[in-house]
């Protein structure tokens, strides 16, 4: 366990990039309230965008076309339905169409429980379009690795962050058992639930492998994913975004095809994430995941 939180890691990476590479960070309301949960430094290269969601993203794309590798921050992923179009239509296509890349680091922050327009998790949408790298780092080390990949490659990277990770210093590690009943793969904030899930189900005599997924696209079928599945013979992908047409189902399909074993998906229900319980449509917590596992093992 390190000392640096995810938020501090993001802030340090950003400061280094802006000061040493003379790059830009663009976003709305960056400095006014807490510097985006303490993830943005007060240094050169911060561009406060006016409340112009599409133009703001287009300006970031224009800066990216000049090769300065800008960081674009959208404080709530829900706003990506507005901010997304310049990235989708231009940045993600330019390399394939013209052989000219448009590298931009899109920081899209997710939240939980703050209503229908601020609790969205939209990484699945960006997996759909060719040209993006899509990831969801939840630990300091993962974030550093994601940044390194961005700097080494020349693609736009959609980084699905989650506020629930920002104060964490923990590295989340896979847990493997020789004779597990099921392998659980988790994405985004659901990953923080897995230790409790394993503990609860363990009391019932159910043993779970735990696998953490950071990179959603490209989704390489790693030995780390397949090997535990071939032993447990059952899998469940858990994600904090919508299940229909979502990351969990897509990855479940990939792993089922690759392994020949049944892999289910668990994500958000096909309902708006409303403000108050019981209508919040929260990401799969330990209770929901446990219920899902029991159901899978009973069939």
């Amino acid at each position, binding site marked *: 366990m390190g000392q640096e939180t995810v938020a501090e890691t993001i802030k340090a990476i950003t400061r280094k990039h802006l000061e040493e590479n003379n790059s*830009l960070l663009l976003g709305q309301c960056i400095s006014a309230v807490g510097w985006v949960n303490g993830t943005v430094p007060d240094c050169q290269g911060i561009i406060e965008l*006016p409340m112009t969601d599409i133009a*703001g993203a*287009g300006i970031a*794309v*224009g*800066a990216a076309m000049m090769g300065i590798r800008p960081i674009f921050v959208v404080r709530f992923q829900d706003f990506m339905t507005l901010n997304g179009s310049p990235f989708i239509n231009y940045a993600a296509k330019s390399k394939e*169409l013209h052989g000219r890349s448009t590298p931009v680091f899109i920081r899209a922050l997710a939240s939980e429980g703050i209503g229908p327009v601020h609790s969205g998790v939209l990484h699945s949408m960006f997996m759909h379009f060719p040209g993006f790298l899509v990831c969801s780092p939840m630990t300091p080390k993962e974030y550093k690795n994601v940044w390194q990949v961005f700097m080494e490659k020349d693609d736009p990277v959609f980084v699905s962050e989650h506020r629930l990770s920002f104060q964490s210093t923990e590295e989340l590690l896979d847990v493997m058992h020789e004779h597990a009943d099921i392998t659980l793969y988790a994405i985004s904030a659901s990953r923080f639930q897995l230790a409790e899930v394993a503990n609860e189900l363990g009391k019932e005599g159910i043993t779970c492998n735990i696998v953490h997924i950071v990179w959603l696209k490209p989704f390489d079928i790693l030995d780390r994913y397949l090997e535990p599945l071939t032993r447990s013979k059952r899998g469940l992908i858990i994600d904090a975004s919508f299940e229909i047409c979502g990351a969990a189902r897509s990855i479940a399909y990939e792993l089922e095809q690759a392994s020949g074993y049944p892999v289910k998906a668990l994500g958000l229900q096909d309902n708006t994430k409303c403000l108050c319980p019981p209508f919040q449509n929260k990401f799969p917590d330990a209770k929901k995941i446990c219920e899902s596992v029991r159901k899978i093992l009973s069939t």
Partner: protein
Amino acid sequence: MRNQNYNVPSGISSQFSVNLSLEIFKKMCLVRYFELGLIDAIKEKQVNYQAYLSTGQEAIAAALATEIRDYLVFTQHRAHDVYLTFGGNPKMLRDEFLGLPTGTSQGKAGSNCLQFHQNGLVMFGHHGFIGENVPQAVGAALATKKKTVCFFGDGAAEEDYVFSAMGFAATHKLPVYFVCIDNDLSILTPTKVRRSWKITDIAKAFGMPAIDIADDPWTILHQTQELNNNLPALINCYVCRAHWHVGVGVDDPPEWDRYQLVKNELISLGHEHSISDIEKQVRQSMETLWDKKLLLKPLKQ
């Protein structure tokens, strides 16, 4: 309002050197004869992809290319004129239409997504969202502080993100020259049906200089020389599109044909022989480029 002499000062052409005027005319010829070859190739089905023709609006890019060739260039869907006048390779544009790997984007992008990054020209095209190149141009100027020209149309001027990007350029005093190619049509819907305001008034409200002018090349050049050290700024150029929004078809005759008007002006200035020679030379080179027998060869690749 909109007419072929709108804000065109009397005798403006005589304020510029003969060589410059002939250079502008040569660039206009290049666009017109390139597109005549392209139109033939489309009609004879040697080219099977959509074309957004610049014929009718050549004068604007031809004039600007003589003055601001070193700017970062951002274009819209109708960009053959900018491409050819600013120094894009005609053969590579032809090959793009033929879907060849020697095309501007290896045949993957086509007429409305043109890019060119050779011979000192930095030209980015858009990807089909009308006006998306405007915030991109502003972002490029923000990142580099380089002078940037952005071409867009009267339809793009109505996109919300175009306003916002212009406002951002004004706020940050970015060196962007906004050039609105106002053909008064969005596909076939006239401007007066779509809106009651002028983009120049919007630009002025943002605090930048802005002017409506007809597409007379000497007037455009004159205004550009006035504005290019006072950016951001906007010119809205009244122009006539000769062909359909997309494709080689034609509707009613255009209100004016600037190509012919420029020819007439040069003849009145005593340059008949020079323009005849220029036209002949450009026509021959474009006929060679689009030669039917030669076309068969790249098509077999």
